[in-house]
């Protein structure tokens, strides 16, 4: 147990040294570290509860994705059947399916063929998975089309990916520093913005879908009449500013997807804040057509199903640009421009969890953590010295290296340090000492039974190591489970506890033994001063 070849000793020392060196970048300011080579730049990331910032968990509204898919499918069915000149009735969305009834029995095979073409194979992990995107069935002339579950899941996944991109753009526009935006689970997105203290504006920006449509106002009846009876098939009632209601056609003339730019500005005549926009060539063409065909009639600018304004088309707009005014404040105009530039979210996002920590609390937490760590370490060091004397000193050195190694490993992994994480490190100091205590108590016992100094030390190590392994593994299992089920700060605790156990196993098995071995070799003691 006490025999170390030179190679092994060197290997142990070098491993410990290298791991500790990884902790070094943490002590230098950001600016200096940036100049170092990339492999040396890994450092610990402070959790949001230590540096302050916002943590937002957003959920994609999968129902909205489903509904939109069904609506798109209904539109596709209409198009296909009209193109094939097949008369039909009762095209409607029922639950999760689109249903349509074919009037003539003879048309049914053709109809099925055309509609089957709508379904596409879905790709699995290794090419096509054999599943199709739509399940089609027919029963006595009634054709039912249902998007398959796999297709819906795929849609949601795409929606999440798209949303992440759009969120990135929006967050960048707000000028926020180093945000983390990542997918979490099947339909959630995690947005973490360090240093952000008031996330209200961010939440507003993320909460808006920003779907912009240009549609015609339906003048066939007044909105009040439509509410009273029943709006016509292709129109719907939408709210406008200040509780007013409009009857708007469902058909979209131009949509925000065709915008190339949107800028806040001020109206030339009234000086109120407006947003001026520009379409790409497709959008410009559609806009020109729409305005040409409808001079003199009002058209509605609809943002997220709310009518922002409904100006009358005075002349055809061929240049593909225009402006939106709608009693905005300057900030609202600004935000709308940001939203339009970044693009519309494919589905609404809801904030299901928010944790924001102000910088004041963050600073306090860091100081409290440091304080506790220093005091705890000092107490333990003192106690070990008093109880085990010289060997206590060895244990303290080993624990010191242990803590340095914990920081090193955390740096290597770019792990996040939270306040519970600091608590974990302090706890690890207490637990790490245990390994050494086990060894020393065993040595004491062996000495009492009359072994010689060196034999006692040797026996102490060999007997104790199996126990050390067993006992630490149980705590490690608890830490592993906690890592798996925990989030945020709690996960930070699990990480430091787990890493602490691993490093303390390493130092107990190697470093303490090494120190004692060398001490024995140099001093050749007759008695063990323990």
């Amino acid at each position, binding site marked *: 147990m006490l025999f170390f070849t030179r190679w092994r000793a060197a290997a142990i020392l070098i491993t410990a040294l290298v791991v500790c060196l990884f902790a070094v970048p943490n002590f230098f300011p950001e600016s200096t570290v940036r100049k170092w080579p990339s492999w040396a730049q890994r450092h610990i990331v402070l959790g949001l509860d230590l540096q302050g910032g916002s943590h937002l968990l957003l959920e994609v509204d999968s129902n909205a994705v489903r509904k939109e898919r069904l609506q798109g499918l209904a539109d596709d069915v209409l198009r296909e059947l009209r193109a094939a000149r097949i008369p039909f009735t009762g095209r409607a969305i029922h639950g999760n399916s689109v249903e349509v009834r074919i009037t003539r029995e003879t048309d049914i095979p053709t109809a099925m063929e055309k509609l089957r073409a709508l379904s596409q194979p879905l790709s699995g992990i290794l090419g096509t998975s054999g599943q199709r995107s739509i399940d089609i069935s027919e029963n006595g002339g009634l054709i039912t089309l249902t998007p398959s579950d796999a297709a819906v899941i795929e849609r949601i996944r795409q929606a999440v990916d798209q949303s992440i991109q759009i969120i990135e753009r929006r967050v960048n526009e707000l000028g926020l520093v180093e945000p983390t935006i990542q997918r979490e689970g099947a339909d959630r997105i995690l947005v973490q913005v360090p240093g952000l203290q008031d996330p209200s504006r961010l939440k507003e920006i993320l909460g808006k879908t920003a779907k912009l449509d240009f549609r015609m106002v339906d003048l066939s009846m007044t909105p009040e009449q439509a509410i009273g009876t029943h709006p016509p098939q292709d129109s719907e009632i939408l709210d406008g500013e200040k509780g007013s209601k409009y009857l708007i056609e469902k058909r979209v003339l131009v949509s925000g997807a065709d915008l190339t730019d949107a800028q806040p500005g001020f109206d030339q005549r009234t000086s109120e804040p407006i947003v001026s926009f520009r379409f790409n060539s497709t959008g410009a063409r559609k806009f020109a057509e729409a305005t040409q065909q409808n001079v003199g009639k009002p058209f509605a600018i609809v943002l997220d199903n709310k009518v922002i304004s409904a100006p009358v088309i005075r002349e055809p707009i061929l240049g593909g640009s225009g402006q939106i005014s709608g009693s905005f404040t300057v900030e609202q105009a600004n935000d709308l421009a940001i939203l339009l530039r970044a693009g519309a979210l494919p589905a609404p996002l809801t904030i299901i969890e928010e944790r924001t920590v*102000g910088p004041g609390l963050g600073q306090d937490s860091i100081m409290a953590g440091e304080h*506790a760590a220093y005091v705890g370490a000092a107490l333990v060091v003192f106690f070990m010295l008093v109880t085990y004397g010289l060997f206590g000193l060895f244990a303290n050195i080993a624990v010191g290296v242990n803590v340095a190694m914990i920081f090193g490993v955390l740096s290597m992994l770019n792990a996040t340090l939270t306040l519970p994480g600091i608590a974990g490190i302090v706890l690890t100091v207490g637990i790490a000492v245990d390994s050494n205590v086990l060894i020393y108590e065993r040595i004491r016992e062996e000495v009492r039974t009359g072994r010689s100094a060196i034999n006692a030390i040797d026996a102490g190590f060999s007997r104790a190591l199996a126990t050390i392994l067993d006992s630490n593994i149980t705590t490690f299992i*608890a830490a592993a489970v906690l890592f798996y089920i925990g989030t945020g700060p709690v996960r930070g605790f699990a990480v430091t506890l787990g890493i602490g156990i691993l490093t303390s196993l390493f130092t107990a098995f190697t470093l303490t033994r090494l120190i004692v071995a060398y001490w024995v070799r140099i001093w050749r003691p007759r008695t063990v001063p323990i």
Partner: protein
Amino acid sequence: MRLLRIVPDDTKFDFMRFRRISFPISAMLSIAAILLYFFHGLNFGIDFVGGTLIEVETKGAADLAQMRSTIAGLHLGDFQLQQFGAPNDVLIRISEQPGGDAAQQEAVQKVRGALGSDVDYRRVEVVGPSVSTELLAYGTIGLVLAIGAILVYLWFRFEWQFALGAMIANVHDLVLTVGFMSLTRVDFDLTSIAALLTILGYSLNDTVVIYDRIREMLRRYKRMSMPDLLNASINATLSRSIVNHLTVSLSLLALLLFGGQAIRSFTATMMFGVVLVGTYTSVFIASPILIYLGVGRTRQGEPEGTEAATPVAPPTAPSAPNLEPAQVPPPGQAAPRKARDLAAADLSGLAGSGQSSPPASGCLAPARLDLSGFAPQRPAAPATAIRDPALQPAGL
């Protein structure tokens, strides 16, 4: 240099004697804790029941009454307001709003609007219904999973009685800690689950050290009676246990005093779990329970055989005076804590140890451990089988 010796060498304290007291006490405390949980309830934090938590710092001392009426005026349902650490630190907790996740955000907006910019928002946490149900599920699953995983691991390393004994003792730890948390109404949130898991891991740590020593002794001293053996193991590891508990307590004390208000509930719970309960159960529950689970049943002159041999195997007839097969509680009867069970099991323990009373004074013990200091076990009057002189091992 005189080093600090908290525990004198060669202690010979008879721990096993207390098992008749410790088991009933533990049973009562556990029942009390369970009752507390059901009737007094835990102070669930927003992590598990949803809601909003806002910590604000007011300029100057906080006027709680005024803040309370302001927020009451917002009609947000149940809410709590309390001082949190410093006198100008206020913690506002608003219960979950009906209306799903979006409604929680609205509530925050309203509060921000009402309190205005006079206060500094140190922390805002909003947990909607979807996340809170998940966290609760994960938390419970995590605890169960951890218990299961550790049980499996211990089963590998030791025998099933050890695994079961450790689990009983440590679940008992958790139960008492939950009772403590219920009594003190500390916030029960995700960090509390972290504390519970850490207590579990750490307390098992302790138990495993003792079990390791017991296993070593079982191998070495094949004829020692169980209570003696357990006492010897505990006494041998006593010094290490005390020192270790002291170091961990020192670390936790530093955290408790200096770690700040944010993790106070965490550190207080850990302190209770690790220091008070962990030590007690490892010594007074986890070890004696091995007797009740049947470890070392075949002790009394019968060589144990390999470690893998289950200690409850029926003894071979000729040389093994296992005297009370009828009185052995069936293995796996995991709760011999009620008084009448104690009486039955106790008899068997005593009866067994009655056999060894002569040898305890030194025949068996090899040179290393001097067991002469142990009080000889009480002669077991009730069990008639012992009287049979033919069964007394010769030469002991």
